[in-house]
């Protein structure tokens, strides 16, 4: 079954970095999304954090998240380039191949298409020698990249093969984005799919989305939007998506529960999606190696 396609997000679990990695591993996950703060805030230092990640046996889905990078000028731009370089180096050191980059919400960001595309191309160029791909995450409230049509336009102008999109089910469902918009994105330009559900049926009040996004996400199958999630994954797969799925579940309650319990809930979600939803052909172990040898 396709369980291995789904990974946990370290920010979902409570405890030390090592305890969270161990819990993910015990639950059977093979890859995990790492937050930059996991590494730089580690009490024993960055080197220890990197060693823990590398020794965990888990593949790194990616590093998150670079924010408010594009659209700035002068000193603010230079500052953000330094931040980006630092995160790219961190990403490379933990063995990550994807840097999740949130489209800018900064009031200082110039939203002109040319400027945004030029800055994102620069980010992708910075990442290229390190073999890292930039997975850009648009938001309905971003100043620079909102829907898929806007994102596709930016990607086309930037024209970098290591610049693509991260698709987040939460944003799609809460914004009511029609899935047809996914068809606008070339299949090889979606680098990551992040999945989460939430309890309330509909978000009505201003600010409610933000609070829900940060505190009340749950695993797929635990909330009120299972059907929408299934439709999203089915559409992604139909469109030829072949990347990872990562559970970006941010939930304050989960951070007050034992990591093993939460990782176990993640496992149930992965089993459900892997067995009931995904129809992706399983890769025969060592098939690539056999092909190469043959």
């Amino acid at each position, binding site marked *: 079954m396709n369980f291995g396609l789904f990974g946990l997000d370290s920010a979902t679990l409570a405890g030390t970095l090592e305890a969270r990695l161990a819990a993910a591993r015990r639950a059977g996950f093979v890859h995990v999304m790492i937050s930059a703060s996991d590494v730089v805030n580690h009490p024993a230092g960055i080197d220890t954090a990197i060693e823990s990640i590398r020794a965990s046996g888990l593949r790194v889905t990616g590093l998150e998240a670079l924010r408010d990078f594009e659209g700035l*000028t002068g000193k603010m731009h230079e500052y953000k380039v330094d931040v980006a*370089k630092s995160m790219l180096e961190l990403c490379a050191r933990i063995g990550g191949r994807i840097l999740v980059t949130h489209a800018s919400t900064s009031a200082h960001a110039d939203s*002109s298409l*040319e*400027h945004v595309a*030029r800055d994102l*191309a*620069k*980010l*992708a*160029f*910075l990442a*290229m*020698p390190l*073999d890292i791909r930039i997975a850009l995450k648009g938001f309905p409230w971003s100043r620079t990249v909102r829907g898929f049509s806007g994102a596709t336009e930016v990607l086309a102008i930037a024209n*970098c*093969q*290591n610049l693509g999109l991260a698709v987040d089910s939460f944003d799609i469902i809460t914004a009511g984005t029609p899935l047809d918009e996914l068809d606008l994105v070339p299949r090889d330009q979606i680098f990551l799919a992040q999945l989460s559900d939430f309890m309330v049926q509909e978000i009505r009040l201003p600010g409610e989305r933000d609070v829900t996004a940060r505190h009340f996400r749950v695993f797929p199958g635990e909330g009120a939007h299972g059907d929408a999630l299934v439709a999203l994954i089915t559409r992604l797969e139909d469109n030829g998506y072949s990347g990872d799925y990562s559970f970006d579940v941010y939930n304050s309650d989960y951070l007050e529960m034992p990591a093993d319990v939460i990782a176990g809930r993640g496992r149930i979600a992965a089993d459900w999606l892997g067995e009931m939803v995904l129809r992706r052909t399983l890769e025969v172990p060592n098939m*690539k*190696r056999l092909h*190469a*040898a043959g």
Partner: protein
Amino acid sequence: MSLNSLEREAVAEAPNPLGMDGIEFVEFATSKPQVLGALLEAMGFRQVARHRSREVTLFRQGTMNLVVNAQPVDLPRIGRPAAQSSISAIGIRVRDAQAAIDRAVELGAWAAPPRARAMELNIPAMHGVGDSLIYFIDRHDEFSIYSIDFLPIPDVDPKPPAIAGLAYFGVVQYVGFGRSGDWIEFYRRLFGFSPVPDTVRFGIMPKGVLLRSPCGKFWLQLVEPEGNAQFAPSDEHLNRVGLGTPDVMAAVRTLQKRGIDFIATSLVHTSERGALTVASAGGVMFELVHANAP
């Protein structure tokens, strides 16, 4: 749109955006400078100058400058064992070195910190593949960059002739599996290198993608791992220097008399098209390629 961005757009479209004009020097980093020096002497290079304050030596043969850097601080920190010698930098001749580094950084290149000390020439540089650097050198036709930092070795011909017309032809870069596209983009955006069709081949090592410099004086060959090597950890680096000669057989005969061994297997062996030296002095190889004199 600012004037600055207009300028960037303008240069990006030029076929030779930096005014590239061949290679000024190739630098090797080594912890065994004497062993490498002996190999270079056998290859026809002559030690012509020493750096005023560092363990850096200038070798020359015909039009080729070759720098041997044995400064401990400049040796590669990661990757291959330090006992090996490796190509650590390429110096590229450009119209305006400062403009070149500015444009490169604007595109998203990683600028390298200056190595110059007081009274030394500061040559702008950026990071290339692996641990290697790319230097930008201008005014190469007006004065020598070596005359400031290097002291000539007395009683040595400062311009020793080349064996069989040997001259820099290109560099072979090993890239990770599936990474050729990234590196083609890297060299295209930075310098205006362009891939040539597979029907255009030089030498006896036909693998990989061949890139032609915009000045037509230098070639890059990108080689991906094959077979089971593609599952090994990626080690991207500059692997060997290609030397062009109008008469490969004559060059090989002379070099053999000087103690250079050439690979002679059923797959790789000397021919009029080219030849490959046996690795020596900690992994250093030279490839001879048939090329008409520039």
